[in-house]
């Protein structure tokens, strides 16, 4: 099936099978390895990408569903060498340890800030349910998102 989508600002036309998962198309056809396959059951958030601004689990999402959509992966967050305020805040707060969850955390936070420019700590924790980090204990991730929200406002 034909699939036309804009990924990180670049338009792509692909021929994919109906059973192709978005995660495999991004990683294998477009060589974007930021989204990770981890739990493969929509529980952990490591494969999170944004489709028209909404967070989805690319591991359990048919690629053909993204036809005509605009996608953002972690590779598209920075503007050239200039980091996104969320990336800057994650670095400054020490919100990255092993880094495996980071791309999903950043994109989930981006979706949250798009909906709610001034989230409370509780709003952030609610939104991050299903985004698992086994290193940081979440505290610094939440701090980083609050900082990024303040700098972007």
């Amino acid at each position, binding site marked *: *099936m034909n699939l036309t989508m804009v990924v990180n600002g670049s338009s792509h036309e692909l021929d994919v*099978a*109906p*059973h192709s*998962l978005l995660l495999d198309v991004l990683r294998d056809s477009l060589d974007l390895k930021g989204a990770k396959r981890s739990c*493969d*059951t*929509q*529980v952990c*958030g490591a494969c*999170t990408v944004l489709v028209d601004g*909404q*967070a*989805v*689990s690319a591991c*359990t*999402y*048919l690629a*053909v569903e993204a036809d005509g959509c605009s996608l953002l992966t972690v590779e598209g967050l920075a503007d050239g060498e200039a980091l996104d305020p969320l990336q800057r805040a994650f670095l400054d707060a020490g919100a990255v340890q092993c880094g495996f969850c980071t791309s999903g955390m950043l994109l*989930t936070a981006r*979706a949250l800030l798009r909906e709610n420019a001034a989230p409370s700590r509780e709003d952030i924790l*609610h*939104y991050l*349910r*299903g*985004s698992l980090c086994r290193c940081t204990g979440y505290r610094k991730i939440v701090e980083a998102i609050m900082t990024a929200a303040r700098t972007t406002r």
Partner: protein
Amino acid sequence: MLRPFTLHRPETAEDACALLATLGEDAAPYAGGTELLLLMKLGLLRPPHLVDVKRIAGFGDIADGTRLTIGATVTHRTLERSPLVRARCPLVASVARHVANVRVRNVGTVGGNLAFADPHSDLATLFLTLDATVELVSPRGRRELSLAEFVRGPWETARRPDELLASVRLSPWPTGTGAAYVKFGVHERPTLGIAVALRLDGAGERARVADARVAIGCVSPRPMRVEAAEARVNGVAEAELGDVTGAMADAAAESVDPADDLHGSAEYKREMVAVFVRRALRVAVARARGAELSASFPHAVVA
């Protein structure tokens, strides 16, 4: 990895049902895929054909009337944020906000949730207290079933192979109803979900409980209304509720049919039913009075 399949994208319910009738058990209706694709990845289901129902006109609509009609492909996220749902069935919106995680809510649909018939479904449990009915369409026409008739058991519904779940209809509670949905657990899916709704008839100390509704999910083969527990509080004066909540909680614990599993032993689940029925009742009574309890319970979400 998914096994190959053919994806059909009909634009009318008639075309979708005709496909289902022709393909029979080789086809599975598909919407958000949040449940179906997981089972297909595990190889537990291997349908050679998926019939995408998201393009069918009307399936994504929410419509007001005497009852609130929610189309089958309305996502949890839409339910959570719909001004109409918030106005007519506010607890439905706030329970939808706590289903799974935001990625599942963005994609997963109300119809998919009900048709999958997971005994742990938050929505199915809550909907039982809203006298929910489901509308099924097929080449033979339409029929309406109560949600209790539709969900037959774990992952089993009354849907025939050529039928599609088109919508669910809810009867909003009368003004003055106080309600709460409390879910408890530490796993991805809840260990227990309890919905309690009731009104207080009359003023001040003479106010009596009326129209109590109690539904319990996760701890029986399917979510169930518990009339035995409702009967213990109906007609009881608010001031005397403390005397009957123990009996109400016991009636609820005796009515459920739990199994030993990863969520805990059957005995433990019965005990938790008794504990959380009491808690949900307290929150619902406070809300019927227009107040909000500041109670928070470990490992539990109060919606």
